[in-house]
């Protein structure tokens, strides 16, 4: 029998629609796979087997009536634990929310359910989405399926690992400073940060409200497009949701794969080919640039001088917004309460609860944000960071006057060894240089796997490298066009799909 866990979401959707298989069979195959490998990977914090099988049965019943709601009807999906799911444990990777059963459901997961998708469970993540290695999860790190001694990246590391370990055909994550694109790159899958405001933040546990963007992760570009199409669209419950139509990303994915990108103008961002870029990553990137040229694109070099200040601006803006957003965890209405012995005051209980419930990265960012917003520093830090944000947006606008898309390596390094994140936070922050400009400007950006780089620590086989494609606001389809063309060329060259190269688990 065909291994259903190796199939793509579009293949599974078609097989379920035609009656060749059922959603229950597909869901069961993935639950079995989770059972088999997740002790080693740790991608899931919670698996909802019974709910998933019930949803699968409902999807099968709908499909049998000939009224499948979408091409993804009956297809399973992993959901990052940042999405609020009614009656299903939701923790955002934090002790603060351990055991919480939300009384409502996020818009994105509601839409995916309406499309007939089956939620397998909640994927592990860095606590409140703060981190680039998934080691800040209060419930333990996630292992990279390419080498279990490596991180899968973060903060959507669980979602990425679930997809690359064949524990789910597709997943959703959230990207605040690169948290979809970077783990996608480090685990050899496709990850997309849509244009800010096109996917609803209602029911997404807030980290940095002006940056948080839900998005899809999948093993190929077409599946990524199908999930983005299903989850996107204006939401009156999110005041930052754009009342704009989402471009035809599925059509663009098909077009890119079929027709290539002849005549497309691509800019390589000189300022993101920076210090810290591993030579083996650079070599893969250069080869991909060559390939884009071979596919008929006009590739030029572009300078975006303010991108280099993205890290500084981000690590002032995001913690500032986080310090405000995380004030809601005050031990009153939900979550943890510590020290309520009848003797202590509300303020003491609040402080003790927050001490016990938050991990070091969250505390560090709350303090940093409180500092950046405090009187005397707000002009010097927070306001200046907001100015840099405008300048980065202006850099994008200027560049898109000359080219259709911008590209860079997604991450300057391959997946790094587990156990390094909390000793030197600054060095981890600096790794986000490549993903932060698109976050600050709210532009769409995709990571697509381009090849394998020799492992610099040499404790395993080569590790995946991703290429980032950035497009103008609401032109998400351009990312899909280029991503699909590159993917088709790469698959043709290696005679299979990228994850065929991954070691068996």
């Amino acid at each position, binding site marked *: 029998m065909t291994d259903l866990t190796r199939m793509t979401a579009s293949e599974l959707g078609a097989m379920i629609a035609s009656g060749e298989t059922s959603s229950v069979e597909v869901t069961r195959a993935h639950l079995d796979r989770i059972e088999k490998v997740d002790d080693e990977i740790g991608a899931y914090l919670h698996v909802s087997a019974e709910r998933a099988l019930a949803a699968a049965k409902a999807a099968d019943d709908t499909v049998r009536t000939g009224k499948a709601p979408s091409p993804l009807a009956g297809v399973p999906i992993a959901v990052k634990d940042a999405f609020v799911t009614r009656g299903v444990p939701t923790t955002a990777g934090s002790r603060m929310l351990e055991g919480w*059963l*939300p*009384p*409502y459901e996020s818009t994105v997961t509601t839409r995916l359910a309406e499309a007939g998708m089956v939620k397998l469970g909640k994927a592990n993540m860095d606590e409140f989405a703060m981190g680039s290695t998934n080691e800040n999860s209060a419930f333990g790190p996630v292992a990279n399926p390419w080498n279990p001694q490596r991180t899968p990246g973060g903060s959507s590391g669980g979602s990425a690992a679930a997809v690359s370990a064949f524990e789910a055909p597709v997943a959703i994550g959230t990207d605040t400073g690169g948290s979809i694109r970077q783990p996608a790159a480090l685990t050899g899958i496709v990850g997309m940060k849509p244009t*800010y*405001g096109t996917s609803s933040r209602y029911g997404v546990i807030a980290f940095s409200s*002006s940056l948080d963007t839900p998005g899809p992760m999948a093993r190929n570009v077409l599946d990524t497009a199908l999930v983005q199409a299903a989850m996107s669209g204006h939401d*009156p419950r999110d*005041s*930052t949701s754009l009342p704009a139509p989402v471009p035809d990303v599925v059509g663009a994915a098909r077009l890119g794969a079929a027709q290539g990108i002849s005549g497309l103008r691509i800019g390589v961002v000189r300022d993101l080919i920076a210090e810290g870029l591993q030579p083996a990553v650079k070599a893969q990137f250069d080869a991909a640039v060559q390939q884009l040229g071979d596919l008929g694109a006009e590739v030029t070099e572009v300078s975006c001088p303010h991108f280099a*200040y993205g*890290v*500084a*601006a981000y*690590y*002032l803006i995001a913690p500032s917004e986080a*310090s405000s957003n995380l*004030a809601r965890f*005050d031990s*009153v*209405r*939900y979550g*943890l*309460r510590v020290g*309520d012995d*009848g003797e*202590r*005051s*509300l*303020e*003491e*209980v609040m*402080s003790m609860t*927050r*001490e016990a419930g*938050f991990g*070091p990265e969250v*505390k*560090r960012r*709350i*303090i*940093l944000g*409180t*500092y950046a917003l*405090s009187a005397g520093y707000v002009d*010097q830090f927070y306001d*200046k*960071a*907001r*100015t*840099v944000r*405008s*300048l980065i*947006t*202006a850099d994008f606008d200027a560049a898109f006057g000359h080219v259709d898309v911008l590209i860079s390596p997604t991450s300057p390094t391959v997946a790094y060894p587990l156990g390094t994140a909390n000793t030197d*936070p*600054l060095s981890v922050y*600096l790794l986000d240089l490549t993903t932060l400009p698109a976050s*600050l400007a709210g532009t769409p950006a995709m990571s697509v796997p381009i090849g394998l780089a020799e492992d610099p620590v040499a404790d395993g086989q080569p590790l995946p490298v991703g290429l980032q494609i950035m497009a103008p*606001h609401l032109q998400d389809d351009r990312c899909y066009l280029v991503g699909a063309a590159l993917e088709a060329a790469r698959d043709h060259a290696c005679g299979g799909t990228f994850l065929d190269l991954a070691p068996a688990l």
Partner: protein
Amino acid sequence: MAEEKISREEVAHLAHLARLEVTDEEIDTFAVQLESILENVAKIAEVSDAGATPSSHNVTMTNVTRPDVVTASLDRDEVLAQAPAAEQDRFRVPRILDEE
């Protein structure tokens, strides 16, 4: 040696403002880490901002209102079931005042 950006006392004060109890050990660690982070982010002061307006969002924001119509809210029992403590259909909080 760079100018000191943040002292132990300041870290303790900020933690207090954020209602975050911190241990002496955490204060030591955070002071060192925050100093190196602040030293790095301070480079945004180099940026010439002539003509640029600070932006808090990357999309044009407008105030969003909806008609003042009563709609269903979250189920009270379901919400209170998730609270750390509830009493008489309300959230129960520890005492507000430090002294009787």
